[in-house]
């Protein structure tokens, strides 16, 4: 089994490469989920701002 990990001396490179790729995939998955979880809360913030009194401009003609 140890031969499998040594990989004829190249083990360090192969494993570090696979390790980093796995890390990048996991980081991205985590980031995507985190953004999705945070989104509704962010939406609530926006919603409250939107609730602020809407300015309805008045247009009238001078006599």
């Amino acid at each position, binding site marked *: 089994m140890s031969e499998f990990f040594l990989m004829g001396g190249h083990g360090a490179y*192969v494993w570090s490469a696979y390790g980093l790729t796995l890390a990048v995939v996991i980081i991205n*998955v985590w980031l*995507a989920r985190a953004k999705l979880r945070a989104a509704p809360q962010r939406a609530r913030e926006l919603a409250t701002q939107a609730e602020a009194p809407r300015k309805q401009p008045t247009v009238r003609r001078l006599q």
Partner: protein
Amino acid sequence: MKLPRWFHQFGSPPYVYRLADRLCPWLGGLGGALLAVGAVWGLAFAPPDYQQGESARIIYIHPQTAYIGMMAYVVMAVASAIGYVWRLKLAHAVAVSAAPIGAWFTFCALFTGAVWGRPTWGTYWQWGDPRIMFEALLLFLFLGYLALREAFDDRDKADRVTAILAVVGVVNIPIVHYSVEWWNSLHQTSTLLAEGGPAMTTDMLIPFLIMVAAFTLTFYWLLLRRLQAEIVEREGDARWIRELVGEGAR
């Protein structure tokens, strides 16, 4: 320019949001499974390369991550071009979602490329190799795009300005790619990572293709999840978001 009807369907955020919800479980599940299968196959069962020995196993991840990086840039450029021309906020949302994924995978491709070069050239950073040079330039383009987007506080202006940068970037990518390739041919260093990579026997090809499919599915899963988050953020005050928020999105 009148848009075809189905195009409008993809233009409406609620439709796309629910579509993403339906697609993601499939993309994620299949992508994850293929990743596992491909990795195990590549590491354990595929034969070592007669020249480079074991380090050739990186061939199952480096070209894939590089390809994802490039695909992400093209998706980003096409989406922002559509967003710019037809003023579709959703298209800009796709571009915003694709950019960070592309940057991450290009960085990963850069690292795995460098590590792959190590045993053969004895150096971590072989400037001679065109692929690594091109990956680095592509990463700078991504970082430039992300930096420009962060520099604007008004989202609509950020969308339209970065769209122009993305389109100019995608026009320049082939130019940069071939000039780096041309430049490399002058210095005749061993192009280990030649276009097709070392000649691949069929039993190496299968895990290679599995990994390509795995990364593609994973990319689109990531893209859709980020797109959903971006949609909620951009449509914040829309009614359908409030119902969604009410029930607490997963």
